């Protein structure tokens, strides 16, 4: 039990289960999935589909945060990518042909890649703080998206493009397949190769990893580029859902949702250790939360209040100081005597007795602490 509580996925999963339970109580058919016309229908499928763009963005965000960075521009990239793709389709001669859609997607992705490269350039070559470097694109990006759409909300009709989000494959919406496949692909690339370790090394100590021969600069640059690309893909999914390029509102606040998903998933904003599975759960928590508000019949405007509540509870539970206090309390219960001599080194030493069966990343609560001391 204690190990389960210590596991990094414990609190995010508890939050998710609590939300699902609340929903099921309010609407008993919440978890029901029906099968009709070869498609799956039901709230869980809807949640997965709605979560698809956020999943892609949060994936990129996790990698960026692992290198001690942050990318505030993803929302703007979503807007730009959607605007470019739809604008291309609407001006093309044949909006319905798959060739046009393919070209539109390719152009949007290349542009997002360039925007990601730009962020990476500012962060690595010019050495600008990530938060401010990406703030530039966050501010200017929406202006650029407006420029592309000419200030109008471009709407198009194109069946193949719409199919990118709401087309069905083996019973599930295409958006779910795309996002989950890419998530799995990146997870394998990061965790089955040395890339993940190099990322964490860069995030934990850029100078030391550089001295150890890690190409921190290249890695950081790559990560920002990947984040831009993933945001661009998310932009395509978003615009394929609405079929309208709204430069002002497409992907608005998505950067905050993505950062929240990463934080709820247990990756510290201070960089270093990251876990993608946590991010996955975090995205589901946020998507379910959005849904919960409608199921419970609360005005959607109050969603932020719930968001705030969840963020506060989860971050407080994950805060090193609260965990330390839990650990101390547990130790007291175990030994029966509250000897203050044991207490000081307990916070750092607690995971040590069970290193063999503890999950590899479950001892990472101590890392942010150490770094704070170094700074």
């Amino acid at each position, binding site marked *: 039990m204690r190990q389960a509580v210590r596991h990094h996925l414990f609190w995010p999963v508890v939050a998710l289960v609590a939300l699902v339970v609340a929903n099921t109580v309010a609407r008993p058919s919440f978890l029901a999935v029906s099968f009709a016309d070869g498609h799956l229908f039901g709230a869980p499928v809807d949640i997965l589909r709605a979560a698809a763009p956020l999943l892609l963005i949060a994936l990129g965000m996790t990698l960026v945060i692992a290198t001690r960075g*942050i990318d505030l521009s993803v929302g703007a990239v979503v807007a730009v990518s959607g605007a470019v793709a739809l604008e291309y389709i609407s001006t093309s001669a044949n909006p319905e042909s798959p060739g046009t859609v393919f070209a539109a997607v390719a152009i949007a992705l290349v542009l997002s890649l360039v925007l990601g490269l730009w962020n990476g350039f*500012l962060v690595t070559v*010019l*050495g*600008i*703080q990530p*938060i*401010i*470097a990406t*703030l*530039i*694109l*966050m*501010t*200017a*990006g*929406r*202006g*650029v998206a*407006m*420029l592309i759409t000419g*200030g109008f909300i471009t709407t198009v009709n194109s069946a193949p493009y719409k199919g990118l989000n709401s087309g069905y494959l083996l019973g599930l919406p295409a958006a779910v397949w795309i996002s989950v496949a890419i998530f799995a692909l990146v997870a394998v690339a990061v965790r089955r190769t040395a890339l993940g370790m190099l990322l964490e090394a860069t995030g934990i100590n850029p100078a030391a990893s550089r001295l150890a021969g890690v190409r921190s600069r290249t890695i950081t640059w790559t990560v920002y580029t990947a984040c831009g690309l993933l945001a661009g893909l998310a932009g395509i999914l978003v615009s394929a859902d609405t079929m309208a390029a709204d*430069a002002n509102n497409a992907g608005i606040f998505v950067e*905050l949702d993505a*950062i*929240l998903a990463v*934080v709820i998933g247990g990756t*510290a*904003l*201070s960089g270093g250790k990251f876990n993608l599975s946590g991010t996955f759960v975090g995205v589901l928590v946020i998507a379910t939360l959005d849904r919960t508000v409608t199921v419970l019949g609360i*005005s959607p*405007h*109050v*969603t*932020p*209040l*719930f*968001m*705030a*509540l969840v*963020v*506060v509870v989860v*971050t*407080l539970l994950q*805060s*090193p*100081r*609260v965990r330390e206090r839990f650990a101390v309390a547990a130790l007291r219960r175990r030994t029966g005597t509250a000897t203050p001599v044991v207490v000081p080194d307990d916070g750092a030493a607690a995971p040590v007795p069970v290193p063999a069966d503890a999950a590899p990343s479950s001892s990472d609560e101590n890392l*942010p602490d150490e770094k*704070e*001391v170094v*700074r």
Partner: protein
Amino acid sequence: MTATTAGTVARRAPSFRLDRRYLPVAGTFVVLALMLVIGGTRHENFLTPTVFSNLFINNAHLIALAVGMTFVILTGGIDLSVGSVLALSTVIIASLLQAGLPTGVVLVVAVLAGALIGLAHGVMIQGFGVQPFVATLAGMFFARGLCFVIAPESISIGDASFKAIAGWDSWIGYFRVTMAVVIALVVAGIAFVVLHYTRFGRTVYAVGGGEQSALLMGLPVARTKVLVYVVSGTCAALGGVLFAMFSSSGYALSGVAMELDAIAAVVIGGTLLTGGTGFVLGSVLGVLTLGAIQTIIQFEGNLSSWWTKIVIGVLLLVFVVLQRVLTLRKT
């Protein structure tokens, strides 16, 4: 600082040298002057007292936000909640005035609400070790949600005494000054005095310059870090008061993304986001620069409003790179 050595004195009279600390602020000043000159050459009725007064009148609330944000950024933190707290403040004012409470009480309640949210941020950040970004993000959601709980619709303010305060204006020469501008400038003035002439202000700079060193020097780091968020929350709520005066209504959706404007103004004003370097008057100049960009684009007429965002982005880039070059040369 190094000008005391004989060599430098002989080479150049020290009185002509600008302290490197003031370079970014001087840069902001030059850009603002340049903006005004560009506007002035393109439009003959641009360089008028009216335009200049409106620069202050339209941006009084942003000055208050930027002043509070400067405190937080000087300690190396960030406050994303200011836009929402501004909206909350306007909603509280409008709804309480509608309920018939006296203006004085209403204003105090609104400002206290902001201070309380700031205190909550400070406790989360300092007491529980939550990242400033995340803590104030939660505060941003909280305040925005609370706005909608109190009043989902826009409420116009009809209270006579509030309108009398908001409507007060005076002419200094050819320049029109409203109550909101006076309050904003007083806030900026108080912040200037606090930052440069009090123990608290010097501790703010010390914490931003190096938290460990400040701690080892025996400075009250924890108290200071909590207090800067209280200052920021209070300033944001004051910004809400000014915004309510300006728009004479309270609306839950006012001030969306205004935190970005505030951060941009602070950065353009020469404050380093890493903390420890910057001036509150620079932030005021930053706000005026943003205002000048907007005014020029309005004057151009044929330029669409989205150019504002692009120009602000480019300006941010220029300043950040400039700062980077300056800090590189220093080390």
